[in-house]
């Protein structure tokens, strides 16, 4: 399997000299094309920081990240933004939408940055994605009048607009009720089934159990990894049990 991301010896320190805290302490990580990896760990273990470092949103103090073979530390702000826009997709814990745009405009926003003349084509593509997500009827709706689960699904549609090679998710179901969370997970599974790699940070074993591989973090380092193999819906409960057992074993 070809690697999309290869990170080695990542170090990230927060705080001043007096109270320095190593949030990432020599983390190495790889993500293969089309792979689905979940990153688990207690609060403050460095999960989100790892995700930001892998996506080039944050620069580690030490170590290196290669994305599709390009060293991120050597890229400028513009090139990093281009990568985020064209090769990566993001789904955040809170539905992160711009409040004065309607749902459809939010979905096509980033894609429109480079293709200003293709608003119609982009809208059609967005509507098709939203149709699959079951939210096509919300296209013209004010985001304040849409539920959190629906917004999160719209966020996934936005992440897919430029056909990314990887979608990063930072607790995408963290703020949702179980029914809405199930819908969002279903969508992510479908995205993965379409060949897009997914790197997901989560607290939730039932979410992590859908990944092919689970990385456990503790105190800024990778404590363990669990390979679960391709996800089959019937095997959900045993996989959840395996993840939970491993967490207990690690004291997470």
């Amino acid at each position, binding site marked *: 399997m070809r690697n999309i991301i290869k990170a080695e010896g990542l170090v*990230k320190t*927060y705080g001043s000299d007096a109270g320095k805290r190593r949030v990432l302490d020599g983390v190495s990580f790889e993500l293969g094309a089309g792979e689905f990896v979940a990153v688990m760990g207690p609060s403050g273990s460095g999960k*989100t920081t790892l995700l*930001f470092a892998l996506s080039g*949103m*944050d*620069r*580690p*103090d030490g170590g290196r990240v290669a994305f599709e073979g390009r060293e991120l530390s050597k890229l400028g*702000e*513009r090139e*990093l*933004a*281009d*990568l*985020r*826009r*064209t090769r*990566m997709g*993001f789904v*955040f*814990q*809170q539905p*992160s*939408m*711009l*409040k*004065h*745009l*309607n749902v*459809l*405009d939010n979905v*096509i*926003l*980033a894609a*429109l*940055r480079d293709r*200003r*003349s293709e*608003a119609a084509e*982009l*809208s059609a593509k*967005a509507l098709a994605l939203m149709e699959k997500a079951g939210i096509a009827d919300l*296209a013209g709706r*004010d*985001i*304040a009048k849409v539920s959190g689960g629906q917004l999160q699904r719209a966020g996934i549609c*936005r*992440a897919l607009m430029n056909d990314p090679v990887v979608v990063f998710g*930072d607790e995408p179901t963290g703020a949702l009720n179980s029914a809405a969370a199930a819908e969002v997970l279903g969508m992510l599974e479908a995205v993965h089934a379409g060949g897009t790699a997914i790197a997901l940070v989560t607290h939730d074993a039932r979410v992590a159990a859908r990944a092919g591989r689970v990385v456990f973090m503790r105190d800024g380092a990778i404590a363990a990894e669990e390979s679960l193999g391709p996800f089959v819906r019937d095997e959900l409960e045993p996989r959840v049990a395996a993840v939970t057992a491993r967490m207990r074993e690690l004291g997470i």
Partner: protein
Amino acid sequence: MYYRIVKDDVMKSKGVTLATLLFIVAAAAMAASGASLAAQLFGAVDALMEAARTPHFMQMHAGPLDRGPLERFARENPLVEDYFAGEFLNINGARFVIGGESLAGSVQDNGLWTQRAGFDLLLGLDGEPLRPAPGELYAPLAYLRSGAAALGDEATVAGRRFKVAGFVRDSQMNSPQASSKRFLVSEEDFEALREVGAVEYLISFRLKDPAALPAFEAAYAEAGLPANGPTLSAPLFRMINAVSDGFTAALLMLAGAVAVGVALLCVRFTLLAKIEEDYREIGVMKAIGLRVSDIKKIYLAKYAFMAALGAAVGWAAAAALRAPLLSGLRQAMGEGAGARLGPAFAALGAAAVGAAVIAYVNAALGRFKRLSPADALRFGAPAGRAARGLGLPRLSRSRLLGANVLLAVKGFLADFKLYAVMIAVIAAAGFIAVVPARLYATISSPGFSAYMGVGECDLRLDVQQADDIPGKAATIAAALAADPSVGSSAVLVAKALWTVDQSGARVRLKTELGDHAAFPVLYAAGGPPTGADQIALSAMNAAELGKAVGEVLIVDDGSGPRGLTVSGVYGDLTNGGKTAKAAFDAPLAEAMWAVAYAELVEPAGAEAAAARYAAAYPWAKASDIAEFVRQTFSATIASVRTAAYASAALALLVAALISYLFMRMIRAKDRREDAIRWAIGFTASDLSIQYALRAALALLGGVILGVAAAEILGEAIAGAAIRTFGAAAFRFQGGSAIAYLGMPLGIAAASFAAALFGGRDPSLRASVAGGVETPYLELLKE
């Protein structure tokens, strides 16, 4: 507790707090200075007129004087307290030589005066009446100001040697707007020079009750007493004395009002952004049971502190500026009763500014009442807010505009209430830059004399104090008509007509007869008289006679009373401000003076032409009109110029500073949205472009609004200021390119640069360059 809250808040937002404070200080300083100048001015004018025992009524009279009837009238009229017919020895300016320079170019009627009466006193700069010794010459203060004379200068008047022993505070003729200037000499010197000049009588009366002036004027006119010259009265003296400094006071007050406005706007957006930031906390405070008044106190504490500090510093600054601001006034008028009131008025002005800020903040905090704790805790923002700006333009329907432009437009529309503040500030800046610039351009333009009752022309010839005025006027008319260098000309002969005022008294109407369409003055209403049945009145006469355009005035020109329709009302500051204009001839009426206007083929030759006519017709006073206007209005023009430069500088500063602070505020407020945009692939420069576009939209709106307001409101405001000194109508003219292009462009450029600077996001740059923790990432983790 409040001290700690204020301190924390100030430390967190030093720049914004400082800028707001500066505006409060500036507003307080200007309000205080304006109030103190006004108090001082009106106090001082009164004090000067009291010390000099200025006449309540003065009739200038040229020609022989029969004192008998005058003395009888003064004795018998119960209104008269004191009477004196003084001699003003009018001497050609060329015969005055001071410090080696002659006054030949002076447009003033220069003459000698002696201190013989117990009133109408000329005072020294110490405020005491002067008693010149032989050989001593006391010069008008205006010549000290213009540099034409200095203490100790050698001087000659018609060859007789003098030494400039001091300067004169003249309660009637201090102001450059007064057309005569009195030099004070000893009686011995006066008599020695008597034959050199022409005596003009200043017939002065002090009244027992100044309020009885209208009745007295009517009685004087009715008595058929000498009146060959302008009639002047105490209100006009008071006005003429107050003009230049009154104008500065008015401008200061105006600028102060604008600065208060800017300070309040500044407070407004600081407060709005702060409330936005603290929305959740305010919700928590309400939820745990704090009263709205308790919460208001916390926010009010900071502004109450700033308002008090700002007002105090502003007052202190005004106190420091008092000396230079008032020095000219002191020199001209001395300390008046208002001098003691000055500091109190200043304190009042500064306190009013502070109170306005506190009242405004208190009112703005009223929105806490409407704040729902539930919404605040759930959304951290008022529910339903997101709907704003949701309408057009839609990104999904756009064909032409890119994402950056669309996001900028939508952001601008969504937060329009906030951008409205910036628009208002830029508009205010545009206003305060454009109005004084326009005012300056207008009053320094050649046509400005028309506002003052002098037709726009190149050359003006006055025939006064002469025999056979109509004959001399005809001579001049013929000379002008035959002169190839004269393009067009008109000769007006002023004659004494009679009318009846509102009280029924018969009053003299000094009416200029001739063609008034050729060199028109500015009409506040209506236009020049054209037919034999029309008459135009000066603003003062129209008010006194109670006549408006279209009404009929009964006038007697010696051939019996007849009704004339008022064709127009114009501003006039010449000949006492009470004149009329008509187009017919009144052969039976007594001629008072004549004036000729000429437009030259080559306007640049005005000075030479004036010299030529002065030599050819020594009984006429020939003035190059540009020089006439320059000398007459130079003090006013200079103070307006200073005000224009100062307000342009202030406007640039305000616009730039506010734009900078505003964009910083907006970016702080929108940080979470910026984080989202950035995370999904917009570059830092994309975001900067979006904010720059928003700023440009606001700037464009502000500049257009400011210029429009300057055109519509500014003319009215400047007109009101100008009307206080005798002009009846006012219209901006001249200087449009600088005022309407230069000023707005300057403001737009300065603001845009400042907005770009304020709209940068330093934290993002740092994060990308150095791996520092960025606020964006924190926001995205939430």
